[in-house]
């Protein structure tokens, strides 16, 4: 009895250093951001940062709006291109892991290399850098992130559901709309968050592919924290807004896939 108690204690103890590590380097930094949002340059308590951001004095709110629109369009294009891709992969190449791998491989080449390559090609083709090129770059960068979760859910759909629908007299369209599409909803939602969140918060892609003309939310956060501007307060408010978006997105993901993933994680 005594031995068993001891082993429980020792095994648990292995988690404590990591818990402290997480607390120190994940939770505390976010708390500091939260505190920073309420401080002005002289470290006095103030709501001025929130007022400045939400009254759109520095144009922060406009940038957020633009980023949301660009992110939304990018995500939509990714979904429209990616869903058929994942569907065909699951339908015709379910046994071939290598084929799926080929769609994911580009993800692992550094995104700066890919983005600068596309920029060089656009420049050589005399394409004017602007909204279109930024959009292309984003879709190109985030398409694998959309295909991967979609493919995972589509492959895991039990084929007997589809057969049952066919037996019950559904034609192909009905099978797709009433069986496959609803069953793949968790994949759609997680694909959307996996592209939408990075798309609005990235910096560098928009900067490189628009020739520093288009300014997204990630660039704005970057600018506020750079040494030249040094407006940490407003930057912190922006980070908090971003954090809220992330949390909301993940709550939605957890709600749609509550039966499977939530139980497997806990």
């Amino acid at each position, binding site marked *: 009895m005594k031995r068993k108690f001891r082993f429980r204690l020792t095994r648990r103890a292995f988690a404590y250093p990591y818990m402290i590590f997480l607390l120190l380097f994940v939770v505390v930094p976010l708390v500091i*951001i939260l505190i920073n949002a309420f401080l002005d340059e002289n470290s006095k308590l103030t709501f001025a940062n929130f007022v400045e951001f939400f009254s759109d004095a520095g144009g922060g709110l406009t940038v957020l709006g633009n980023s949301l629109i660009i992110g939304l369009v990018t995500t939509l294009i990714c979904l429209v291109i990616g869903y058929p891709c994942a569907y*065909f992969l699951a339908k015709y190449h379910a046994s071939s892991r290598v084929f799926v*791998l080929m769609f994911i491989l580009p993800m692992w080449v*550094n995104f700066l290399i890919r983005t*600068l390559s596309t920029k060089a090609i656009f420049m*050589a083709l005399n394409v004017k850098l602007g909204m279109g090129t930024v959009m292309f770059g984003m879709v190109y960068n985030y398409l694998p992130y959309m295909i991967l979760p979609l493919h995972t859910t589509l492959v895991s759909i039990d084929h007997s559901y589809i057969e049952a629908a066919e037996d019950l007299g559904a034609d192909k369209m009905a099978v797709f709309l009433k069986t496959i599409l609803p069953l793949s909803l968790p994949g759609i939602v997680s694909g959307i968050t996996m592209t939408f969140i990075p798309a609005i918060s990235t*910096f560098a892609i928009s900067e490189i592919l628009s020739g520093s003309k288009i300014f997204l939310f990630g660039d704005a*956060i970057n600018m506020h924290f750079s040494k030249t501007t040094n407006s940490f307060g407003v930057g912190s408010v922006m980070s908090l807004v971003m954090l809220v978006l992330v949390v909301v997105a*993940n709550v939605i993901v957890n709600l749609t896939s509550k039966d499977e993933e939530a139980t497997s994680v806990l």
Partner: protein
Amino acid sequence: MNRTFDFLALSQTAANWLLAILCVVLAMQIAILVFIVVRRSGKTGKCRIRERVRSAESRSPRQKKSSRKLFARVCADGYLGLVLALLYLPILLIIVFSFSGTSRFSFANGFTFDSYKQLFDSEYNEGLLDALKYTAILAVSASVISTILGAFSTIGIYALGRKMKKITLTVNQLPMINSEVVMAVSLMVFFAAFSFVFPQGMTRLIISHVAFCTPYVVLSILPRLQKMDPNMYEAALDLGANPFTAMLKVVFPYIMPGIVSGFAMAFTLSLDDFIITQFNKGDTGIETLSTYIYEDARVKSLEPFWFAVFSIFSVVMFTLLLLMNIKKNAKEAKK
């Protein structure tokens, strides 16, 4: 810029592009061929028979329907090929034109290795070699630390009570779901606030990389641990092992695949990271590969030198990942 209509030049560039696209298509076809060969050779006899039976089944009943199915399949494959082409075209074009010695995407100067020769020229590669060194140090140390930390803490987390486990795993997920910019900024502010504890430079970079890599290590080991029969550990204890030996000789060998894949994940993540490094490198002059590329190439247009660098990195990355996955596939096929 001279905008007069120059048919010769135009036809030349058109021919160049055609040539390049042809090269790309050829390369992709070779790649697909290699894949097919690998797949065939990896398959066991049983699978092949099953496949033949399946194809016989699909061929037999109604021929009209099967021809329509074939058409749909060809269309689907065409679509997949198109998307693949989109995904690979920029990188492949860079690889093809890295042999042109110019950055204008034309073979006007013919086929040369000039851009590769520049790699050995100290005038060009000085900063790059430093960046390479720092990237290697950072990736190795961050992935080793996060693997060790992750492996032990996963065992600990697994043994935690229900409530604590839930809280720890939720916090553990934060770096994964959080937007990278926010994570980077929060760490930067944190380090600035406690700058007397965390000196600028490598210390900060390693800590921040460990902070965002370890969650992935934990989540790649945890499922493996959950699958493990708890009796195995108890049996080891009953057979006279003390908890530490039992862990070393029973638990660790069992979760080893998770540890290995976690390590690989952490290594590639750290290698690939740009945003967190960019914010936390400080002004000690430390540049990793990504930040060096960013500083050097974003303002100027891409020089031929970078074509060579990009080609080498892409090819190395592709072969590494392919080898890793083919090995994994072969192992699973054996089982």
